[in-house]
């Protein structure tokens, strides 16, 4: 909104001056006074006189009236008709669309100035001709914008809902569609006005727009050109005023567009590489000998307009060779941020605030980018959630896999391609020669995810991180991918971190599980133990919420708190049936509850005793 202020005020002032021109008591802008031809600043003429002795200041103000008058008139005419066309075309489609929107596109085949010149040839120059031409020129813009917005609004469920409620078409168009279309149309209007000012002045400059002696900025520049050696300021003033007006309008357009489009609004990110704390502030890890990855006290901080937040706090876990660790949690639990941090792929606004992570003998969190790059796709690799968007649409899938091999090993392209083919075969893609030459859009979602897995396996990683790799897929395809991952782990001994929100998937694939809630691990242990005898009330509630057939699922009251509102002490306490005042007293540690079994709950021992009486 702040960005609207300066250009908005400027445009308002210019408009005001143009509107108030007759009230300002200015000298007649067309009255000639040859005696004062090209005179400098003088009494009553602060900016001097032009080649016919007319007052320059007065002509500037009156010129604004002409330019803006033409611009606004044409933009408004085009706006009203074009928006109506777009609404009709977008709502009724079919023939209506052809007549109102598609037909307009032909106008876009002409360079604007030329279409204007064609009409001027026929009708002669003048303000009326200009308004006609300009409104025709801007019609398709409005029709297209409105049309596209109506189509997008139509596809929204809330429009369908109003239809289902039984509202008639005109009511839906005016009450539901139009308000949601208004923003882009407003932006288009300001664009059209700014562009019309440019075109009007250009045509007037050529002597084909406004007819002299009427004042117009374009005409003033045209006139001043002839005498620019004697009186350069005469050229300067209209140029400056014209440029300033267009600049203010353009800035206003940009600000309006940002205000209307939620995608571009929001926070300005500060660019900053992550800060490098000195390692060794925390006790060193004492991982078991076959541990592939040991994470201790990982904390991620993100700067937001409301202050720094910590979406991940004090996360510790180990992954051993050949083991699958599932990290399970609902949205906002911090599970993806955790793995993104381990891969060194955090966005620039986020930084590691504390903790360490050892991959073999290498500490990941403070490794320089080049060292991290060598590990990524090499010793540790990652499969992402959405295979549709995670592959580059313009490269062949085979090339994308071969590229991963070439990034880590000094072999020939042909050799890399051969190895990629073996990988395609390995992940169960039939006819790999042909599939490798296919582009991502020619493949199904399951197939693309197989390509992503082939890519991740390219350099025989010690650790494979899978971030919800099956969430975007259908169940039957999900089963295929889970099966493939289990088989790969068996054959290669790769350790896997599997992020998911589905407890069913955890039960299918994992050996051990870490349950995350609001940025912290609340419980971890072997899947069998955690699912048979959950220690944390959240784990228990989560298990009870899964529909499994006979007992109706029980929801957990309330919602997951957002990171800027994490409660003090136990973060689950506000939703927990067993909460006591002591739960919110202070930060809770992750306590060891048995071999390889941790829980973060102030009352876990009391609650465990009680639940032993009632079989789970």
């Amino acid at each position, binding site marked *: 909104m702040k960005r609207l202020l300066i250009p908005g005020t400027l445009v308002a002032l210019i408009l005001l001056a143009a509107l108030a021109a007759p009230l300002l008591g200015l000298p007649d802008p067309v009255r000639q006074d040859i005696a004062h031809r090209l005179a400098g600043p003088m009494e009553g003429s602060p900016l001097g006189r032009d080649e016919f002795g007319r007052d320059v200041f007065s002509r500037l103000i009156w010129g604004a009236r002409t330019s803006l008058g033409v611009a606004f008139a044409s933009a408004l005419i085009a706006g009203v008709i074009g928006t109506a066309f777009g609404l009709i075309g977008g709502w009724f489609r079919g023939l209506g669309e052809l007549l109102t929107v598609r037909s307009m596109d032909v106008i876009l085949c002409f360079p604007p100035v030329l279409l204007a*010149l064609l009409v001027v040839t026929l009708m002669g120059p003048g303000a009326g001709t200009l308004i006609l031409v300009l409104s025709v020129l801007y019609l398709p813009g409005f029709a297209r914008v409105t049309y596209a917005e109506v189509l997008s609004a139509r596809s929204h469920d809330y429009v369908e809902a109003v239809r289902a409620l039984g509202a008639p078409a005109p009511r839906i168009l005016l009450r539901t569609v139009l308000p949601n279309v208004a923003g882009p149309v407003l932006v288009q209007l300001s664009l059209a006005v700014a562009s019309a000012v440019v075109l009007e002045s250009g045509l007037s400059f*050529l002597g084909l727009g406004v007819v002299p002696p009427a004042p117009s900025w374009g005409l003033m520049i045209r006139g001043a050109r002839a005498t620019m050696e004697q009186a350069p300021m005469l050229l300067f003033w209209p140029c400056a005023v014209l440029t300033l007006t267009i600049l203010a309008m353009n800035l206003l357009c940009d600000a309006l567009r940002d205000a209307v489009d939620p995608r571009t609004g929001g926070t300005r990110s500060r660019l900053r590489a992550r800060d490098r704390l000195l390692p060794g502030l925390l006790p060193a890890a004492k991982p078991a000998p076959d541990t592939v990855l040991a994470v201790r006290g990982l904390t991620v901080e993100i700067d937001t307009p409301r202050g720094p937040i910590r979406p991940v706090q004090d996360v510790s876990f180990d992954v051993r060779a050949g083991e699958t660790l599932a990290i399970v949690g609902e949205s906002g639990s911090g599970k993806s941020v955790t793995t993104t941090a381990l891969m060194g792929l955090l966005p620039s606004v986020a930084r590691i605030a504390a903790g360490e992570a050892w991959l073999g003998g290498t500490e990941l969190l403070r490794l320089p980018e080049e060292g991290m790059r060598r590990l990524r796709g090499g010793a540790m690799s990652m499969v992402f959630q959405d295979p549709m968007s995670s592959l580059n649409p*313009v490269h062949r899938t085979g090339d994308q896999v071969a590229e991963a091999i070439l990034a880590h090993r000094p072999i020939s392209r042909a050799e890399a391609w051969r190895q990629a083919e073996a990988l395609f075969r390995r992940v169960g893609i039939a006819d790999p020669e042909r599939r490798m030459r296919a582009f991502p859009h020619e493949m199904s979602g399951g197939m693309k995810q197989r390509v*992503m897995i082939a890519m991740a396996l390219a350099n025989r990683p010690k650790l494979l991180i899978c971030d919800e790799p099956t969430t975007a897929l259908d169940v039957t395809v999900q089963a295929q991918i889970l099966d493939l991952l289990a088989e790969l782990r068996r054959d290669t001994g790769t350790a896997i971190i599997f992020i998911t929100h589905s407890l069913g998937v955890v039960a299918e694939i994992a050996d051990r599980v870490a349950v995350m809630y609001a940025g912290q691990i609340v419980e971890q242990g072997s899947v069998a133990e955690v699912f048979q005898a959950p220690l944390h009330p959240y784990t228990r509630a989560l298990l009870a919420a899964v529909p499994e057939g006979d007992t109706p699922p029980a929801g957990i009251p309330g919602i997951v708190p957002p990171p800027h509102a994490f409660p003090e002490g136990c973060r689950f306490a506000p939703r927990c049936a067993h909460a006591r005042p002591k739960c919110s007293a202070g930060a809770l540690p992750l306590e060891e509850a048995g071999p390889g079994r941790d829980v973060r709950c102030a009352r876990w021992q009391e609650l465990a005793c009680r639940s032993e009486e009632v079989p789970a």
Partner: protein
Amino acid sequence: MLWVLRRIGISIALAWLVATIVFMTLHMVPGDPAELLLSTGGTMPDPAAVAELRERLGLERPLLEQYGAFLSGLTRGDLGVSLIDEYPVLEEIALRLPRTLELILAGTLLSVVVALPAGTYAALHRGGAFDRIASGLAALLLAVPVFVVGTLLILVLAQMLRIMPAGGYVALADDPLRHLTLLAMPALAIAKGLSAVLFRMTRASVLDSLSRDYVRTARAKGLTARRVLVHHVVRNALTPVLTVLGLHMGTLLGGTVLVEYVFNWPGLSTPLLRAVEARDYPMVVGIVLTISGLFLLINLIMDLLYAALDPRIRAA
């Protein structure tokens, strides 16, 4: 391949539509077109002159016959003769078009060379000093109309500093150095708007591309920053830039008329403006059709390039 043929087919259909609309403009204006073309400032033109003009424009014949003759003339490359000096329109265009094309080409090259690297660099260092200065400059350049820039360039470089000629034209064969010197200022004026548009588009497109999942994948593969940038970010960011470039050519072609006028560059705009002032209808139609055709052709080329860069388009 089918896609290419289809796209060419669409272009031909559009060219036909453009020709039809140009033809219809003459007949859609209220009143007798001949009378309209001869009238100046509300005075009734001489009836004999009107009759003669109607005869010369073939307005007496049935509309459909006129339309047929117009279209068949177009396919044969016959654009009629000037009303003023009976000079064949096509010959005039053939003489002038290469000069206009040269100007456009020079301006476009200049813009691409400056704007693509600058836009990419600004996006990669978003919020930095270069980004702010370049973005501000682009906003300013967009706001200054091309004829203002041209006139100011002449005022400062030619009139005040006297380091550049004020305008004009010398054939390349006669004096290559002088030719290029004279080309510099108009090409610069053309490049100013286009480079600003290209800069902004490149910057936005690279920023968008940077945030895509496949860039994250490329980084997760362990590719070097350079390879991620060239193969995944810039490669994907280029396609939308191409489309915008094609669409913006319309404004550019219009701007060329003004630039040629300001710098006395004897391209198509000289006969065009003379013809508009003299209401020389066949000449105006000929030039408008030529430039519109050029516009369609450029967009066709851009779309084909786009398809070459983005495999998804070919499948659609």
